[in-house]
């Protein structure tokens, strides 16, 4: 599944439009956690993260873990300096009004798996 397809099908708000991700390869894996230590330890490389943790560390952790994008759930929107850091690092960020549970359910229906 391409990131642009995920964005469209889940009605995600792209909060880093400066980043072009058309050339990114397909996303087949996902991870969901609000504990960044868990993301560091367990998120598969190349996965998309769903979380409501909007602390700036999410960006550094996502990069360390080799994630392709982050979806913030329940309308949680990180502040501008977090968004800027993501743009600098080329990490696409999205916001959804849906709960983590529903977002993960939709991603699973699209074929993404946890490992």
């Amino acid at each position, binding site marked *: 599944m391409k990131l642009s397809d995920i964005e469209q099908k889940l009605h995600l708000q792209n909060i880093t439009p400066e980043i072009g991700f058309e050339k990114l390869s397909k996303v087949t894996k996902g991870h969901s956690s609000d504990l960044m230590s868990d993301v560091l330890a367990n998120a598969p490389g190349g996965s998309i993260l769903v979380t409501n943790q909007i*602390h700036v*560390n999410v960006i550094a952790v996502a990069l360390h873990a080799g994630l392709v994008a982050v979806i913030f759930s329940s309308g949680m929107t990180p502040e501008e300096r977090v968004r800027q850091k993501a743009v600098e690092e080329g990490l696409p960020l999205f916001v959804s009004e849906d709960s983590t549970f529903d977002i993960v359910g939709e991603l699973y229906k699209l074929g993404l798996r946890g490992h």
Partner: protein
Amino acid sequence: MTPPAIVKEAIRRGLGMIAICDHNSSGNACATQKAAEGMLTVIAGMEITTAEEVHVLGLFPSVEAASEVSDEIHAVLPDVEQRTTPLHDQLLMDEKGAVIGKETKALYGSTTFRLSETADLIRRHHGLVIASHVDKPGFSVLGQLGLFPEDVSFDALEISIGGVRSRKYERYIPPTEAMITSSDSHFLCDIGSSCSVLLVLEPTFNELAGALRGRRCRFA
């Protein structure tokens, strides 16, 4: 855990200084100080739960400073929910251990203060900022945030009793901050189960601050 019982147990265990660090409140610090007068140094503190659900200890130079922080915290906490089976009552006591009231705010939840804001709040009231039980997976800076954030400085990092006993704390040794341990007692029998030794002239808040700054401390 009444103020006189806490004081008595701390003295029995040979402690020279304790800090009362209730969750998100300092309501019982003054009563414990009064109960300890002339016998034991009691620091007014608080364990604050940040918006990211990180636990941070604030240790304050006075009950008044702690109380002001407590008021700011209470302003952002929801009221205690009326449940059919109540959680532990959040009791307020006097120095004799008599119940004088109940906390009306839900102290068990998280505040809306982010970690950096929490550290600022503590420092604005001249308190010491300590990252709680950094070795634990839950409610710790490393557990919640994965890495130490660049924009927050701590006066010390705390290692839990489990971390000290298992000796699995080497990876947490910070380059500049002091490292301490404490019992994090929620029950009388835990008092003194883990503590730190400070090299100080006298058991006072200022000496404590100096010992942390100069890293003149070690696990007991």
